[in-house]
């Protein structure tokens, strides 16, 4: 996992969000513009340059009771404004495992 410390020199290649895991239950959450966390990617604050990313990350790191391990993750924003995860890892974090879970199959 990439720790926020390693991301000190923040460079982003495109639209990004801050994501983490909610402290009490561990589920995947995204930092919102309202300085809170949401399990819904569409509610995530989107940052588009390094300064914005840095500020959003700093604020997220400070909210240590809310969520743990925050880091910047790429997203794709469609023409319709719809936000999608920017890579496979984030896709899996959002949509869950790519395999059937035994208790369900």
């Amino acid at each position, binding site marked *: *996992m990439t720790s926020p410390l390693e991301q000190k020199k923040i460079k982003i290649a495109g639209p990004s969000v801050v994501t983490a*895991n909610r*402290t*009490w*239950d*561990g*589920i*995947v959450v995204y930092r919102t513009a309202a300085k809170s966390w949401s399990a819904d990617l569409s509610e995530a604050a989107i940052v588009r340059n390094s300064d914005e990313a840095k500020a959003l990350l700093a604020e997220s790191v400070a909210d*240590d*009771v809310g969520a*743990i*391990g925050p880091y910047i993750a790429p997203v794709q924003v469609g023409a319709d404004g719809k936000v999608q995860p920017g*890579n*496979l*890892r984030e896709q*899996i*974090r959002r949509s*869950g*495992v*790519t*395999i059937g*879970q*035994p*208790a369900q*199959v």
Partner: protein
Amino acid sequence: MYAYDEIDRTLVNERVSEFRDQVKRRLSGELTEDEFKILRLQNGVYLQLHAYMFRVAIPYGTLATNQLRALAHVARKYDRGYGHFTTRQNIQFNWIKLAELPDALADLAKVGIHAMQTSGNNMRNVTSDQWAGVAPGEIEDPRIWSELIRQHTTLHPEFSFLPRKFKIAITASDHDRAAIKIHDIGLRLIKNEKGETGFEVLVGGGLGRTPFIAKTIKHFVHGRDILSYIEAILRVYNQYGRRDNIYKARIKILVHELGIEKFSREVEDEWQHIRNPSLQIDDEVIEDIRSRFTYPAYEKLPHMPDELRQAAADPDFEAWRKNSVAPHKVQGYSIVTISLKPTGGPPGDATAEQMDALADLVDKYSFGEIRVGHEQNLALPHVAKRDLPALWKALDKLGLATPNVNLITDIIACPGLDYCSLANARSIPIAQELTRRFANHELANLIGRLHINISGCINACGHHHVGHIGILGVEKNGEEVYQITIGGRADENAALGTLIGPGVKFDEVADVVEDIVEAYLALRERPEELFMDTVRRLGVEPFKERVYATR
């Protein structure tokens, strides 16, 4: 079975209330994640992609049925109805909520199960042969010694803050089912000329980024001296071990850099220094531990009961028996391996229903005892041969009678990118696809013994280096790419596999494995020549040619 004493029980209960308090303080914000992380890791709690992951120890892989039921209960109540058996005699739950973890730990503590030594830079749970105590030809039950080492090292300050995690495995059979050569310390139980119990001590094995096969450091250490000898190894390691660099901190690196001769000299010096009578183990201590391992009251049974003779007419039963049933040290009994590798399923997973139903079968047919092995399968250690047909029918109903033990679909795979935050690529879907490709058990039998191991990153939790065919997932330009090795093995002749060429894409992995298998079937001199033997005879070249000729 093994009966814990009062001290252990008190310790386990204290740990639960301590952790409950820590979780409370964490959730209230009194503890930061930085402060809490080391505490949760000491209790087996990792953070994964979707949730916290909770790893529970199954010491030397032995479980009683009340413990198996408790695991089923945790899976059902606090998780999503299943658990994942790992290669190190642990079980992992993938969807645990931090707020509920203290309750889960408390429920497990009631049956003596805990999560100590499943993570962190300490002495991990000592693993052993899953057939310990029942394998024919075994010198002595290795779990007695696993337990001795466990007692000595649990929470021992010198072993709790090591440069890195530390893993020990013990075997007492010629055929090594505990993979001792890929552990930090591997112990092979032997007898000297006087008939006294002792160990060949191997050191410096491990996989990960820099894989090494363990080397023998001493050919015989007397049983009564084994603790002081291990302590001497750990002292040398503690003194030299690289705490500054996480990748170089394992003992395998130290052994490699110092060389085995120098390392053994250092250990020998240290050992002579600390080896005083107070560190010698009294016979009574060993006898006390020995007396806590109880064996069932076996009956005198025929070698070939009528039930078995009759069932032999059923080819489905025979297919299962041939792969899953192994000889037992007591006549009339067998060791039964339960495959957790159903066609299309994730390797090593078991549902709460399966665990509960299995617990009933274990009570009925295996004197209430079940084992967990490093191949991510389970074993029933004491099944009367006359019960085999009935057991098979019951297992089959539960989806637990896949006749593929030790065959190509008996795949070891780590959680990979579906669960693991460190992963570069997925492992489980690759395993699933391979089990579908080779779902024809006749074909799998024709191929014979062939182990496939898959890891989703270089940490090598799926032991890909020692797979007959090893598959390592890496990431290249945002895409999953898989490197294929052949010729590795994890047993007494442990060896690291050789890379056959450039990595291949997710969709191609199963095709590549098919090519390798086809090449093997064409190249083998006779049906008894196993894949490993063909690779040894011919090297990787012909396989490489076959795989890359058309790619």
